[in-house]
């Protein structure tokens, strides 16, 4: 395995800082949480940038915690994929934090409960993306799920409570399936380190069972059809900033683990049946999700269902990447880039919708006539982010679709190309269903509460980034492909499906 064993503090700081912030914000409540936010965000960005620089110089970064090193200790590790995910988290997280400052301005009571949970969730995400240990990944996943559920029930009404419980049960079941798989693998190979496991893993039936348990558990957490039932209520009933980070970031963690495990640890177990099957589930999710999104009455439920479709897209990565060694790099870059652009765009959409809801108290789509006159910025952000969700240029979503289409056609799998293209049209249908209402002559709203400017601006900035990802894709993609064991592994013939 290439790369260096790093002693630089950047990797652990990315995990310690948010956890520390969580403890402090709980300890001190509302007092000085702005300065805490400023300090922690600065720290995280500084560490991340330093880490990226180290990575560019030295490639893959290993960090043996406590100096023990795997297999006795736990290793942290940063490759291109981890960095992409960390960057995504930092970007989306920063703007959601700013948005939350405005969102909870009038609601101290929820604000003081939001921040500790959100900081721990941020820490959990960074921990997932940096961990190189199967059991440690389980702990980070639990940290993630519990903080996510805590944020869902923050709304406190019966809907969000029920949704939160549904989410909690699904997440717990998923974790146990994952842990059972890990238990089997540990029993078979006596190690928990990803890299050692990658070297040892053989696709014998027992190990394949373990891998499939792990996969099902993570599919449940990623909400891939038919295991998506928990997502729409949870993402639809939560508070706007929470929905944004659930749809944008949380589901990406388990998807990241699936990519990591299948294309680094279990590639030898990749079979045509599995990849085509999981791709078909994705395809169903794309169309069924779009259909349901189109028929929602409430704006946030529409967006939540749109997340189900986008998750479906993500899983097209598997058949495209496993099909041939030539299509693998394009497919994996495309899949990851889709995850990143969806995070940014979907967060922007939820934040914009949240602003509209807070201002007008209207959750029904057919009552949004001319909302643009009251909230031009939010509406504009919604539209811009919508472009990325439809996969139209110039946007990150388009670049991702371009790469995935390339992979599909270069591996001769035209049916996935069809899904990609038709799915884009389906998404356009439900997004324009919202946008077209805004050209109707404006109506007067019963309630009208002005919101702090930071809210629409945060949404707009994220939407702008979603579009910028479509014009400045060269650098992130190059970063993704340098020294990434995953992509290198995938482009080796070993992963060609039998």
């Amino acid at each position, binding site marked *: 395995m290439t790369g260096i064993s790093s002693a630089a503090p950047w990797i652990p700081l990315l995990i310690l800082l948010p956890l520390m912030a969580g403890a402090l914000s709980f300890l001190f409540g509302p007092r000085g949480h702005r300065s805490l936010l400023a300090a922690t965000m600065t720290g995280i960005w500084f560490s991340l940038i330093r880490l990226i620089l180290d990575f560019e110089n030295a490639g893959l970064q290993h960090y043996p915690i406590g100096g023990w090193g795997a297999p006795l200790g736990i290793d942290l590790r940063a490759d291109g994929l981890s960095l992409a995910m960390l960057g995504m988290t930092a970007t989306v997280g920063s703007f959601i934090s700013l948005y939350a400052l405005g969102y909870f301005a009038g609601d101290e009571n929820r604000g003081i409960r939001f921040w500790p949970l959100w900081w721990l969730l941020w820490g959990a995400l960074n921990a997932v993306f940096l961990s190189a240990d199967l059991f*440690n990944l389980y702990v980070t996943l639990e*940290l993630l799920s519990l903080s996510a559920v805590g944020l869902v029930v923050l709304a406190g009404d019966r809907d969000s409570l029920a949704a939160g419980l549904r989410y909690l049960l699904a997440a717990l079941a998923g974790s146990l399936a994952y842990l059972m798989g890990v238990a089997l693998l540990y029993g078979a190979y006596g190690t928990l380190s990803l890299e050692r496991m990658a070297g040892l893993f053989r696709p014998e039936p027992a190990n394949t069972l373990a891998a499939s348990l792990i996969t099902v558990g993570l599919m449940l957490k990623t909400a891939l059809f038919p295991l998506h039932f928990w997502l729409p209520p949870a993402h639809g009933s939560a508070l706007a900033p929470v929905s944004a980070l659930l749809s944008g970031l949380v589901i990406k963690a388990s998807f990241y683990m699936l990519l990591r495990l299948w294309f680094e640890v279990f590639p030898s177990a990749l079979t045509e049946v599995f990849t085509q099957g999981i791709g078909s589930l994705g395809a169903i999710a794309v169309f069924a999700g779009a259909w349901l999104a189109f028929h929602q009455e409430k704006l946030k439920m529409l967006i939540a269902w749109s997340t189900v479709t986008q998750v479906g897209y993500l899983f097209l990565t598997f058949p495209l990447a496993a099909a041939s060694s030539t299509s693998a790099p394009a497919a994996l870059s495309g899949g990851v880039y889709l995850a990143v652009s969806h995070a940014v765009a979907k967060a922007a959409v939820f934040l914009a919708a949240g602003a509209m809801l807070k201002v007008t108290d209207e959750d029904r789509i057919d009552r949004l006539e001319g909302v643009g006159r009251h909230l031009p910025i939010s509406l504009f952000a919604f539209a811009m982010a919508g472009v990325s969700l439809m996969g139209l240029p110039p946007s990150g979503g388009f670049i991702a679709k371009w790469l995935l289409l390339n992979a599909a056609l270069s591996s001769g799998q035209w049916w996935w190309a069809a899904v990609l293209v038709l799915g884009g049209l389906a998404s356009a249908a439900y997004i324009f269903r919202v946008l077209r209402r805004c050209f109707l002559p404006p109506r007067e709203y019963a309630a009208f509460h002005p919101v702090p400017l930071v809210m629409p601006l945060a949404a707009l900035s994220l939407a702008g980034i979603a579009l910028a990802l479509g014009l400045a894709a060269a650098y992130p993609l190059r970063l993704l492909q340098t020294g990434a064991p995953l992509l290198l592994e995938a482009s080796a013939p070993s992963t060609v499906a039998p």
Partner: protein
Amino acid sequence: MSAVYGPIRQIAAALAWILGIGLSAAIVALSRPDFGLAELVEAHLEESGVRHPVTAVLLNYRGYDTLLEIAVLLLAVLGILAFRPPGPASIPDAAPDSSPVLAALSRLIVPLIVLAAGYLLWAGAHRPGGAFQAGAVLAGGGVLLRLTGTIPSFESPNAWLRVSLVVGLGVFLAVAALPLFEGSRLLEYRTAEAAMVILVVESALTVSIAAILATAFIGAAPPRIRCMSPSRPAHSAEGERAGQS
């Protein structure tokens, strides 16, 4: 309803059987590791700072897991506090059972509980025991005192409670981060300091674990939920919806 449901039951049963049989077959067929961590654990026990191997794994080799795990524990309480209805408790907090016998007994038993917890904590270094056991026992004492009404319920945790809830995570984070300042790695203790460091961490953890478990018990039940009249749910639900926007 049941018509829809019927199949689910059979499918669940079938899946359970498949799962059970498949897994049993798997653990029999599973290849055996040509290497185990046991030797490694023993080999580095000297440097680990404790004599009990499990404690060594928990707080040194894989201390990072434990660090995240204490965060998970804290999350349970944060989550519970997240959906507690705002505003002061509607019903004055009455002790469920204030019989003098119970009160006297609890006053006698609590010191013993604390003593036992202290022993467990100290014992953890060389034999079964440690922060979690000690914390759990202490939490038991807390629950007892709550049930006898000796300690009141709370609306939102006061400063002292907050401190005891996060001290475990806080101290552990600080200890974990300290080596970074002298250029060594996260959670990398010098052998000499290890024992002391681990004791500090364990003590802080004990306090927090006790506080967290007890708070989870007390905090989950705001006083006003205690009695449950049929009319109540609807009414309180109304209040709830009004309460949140």
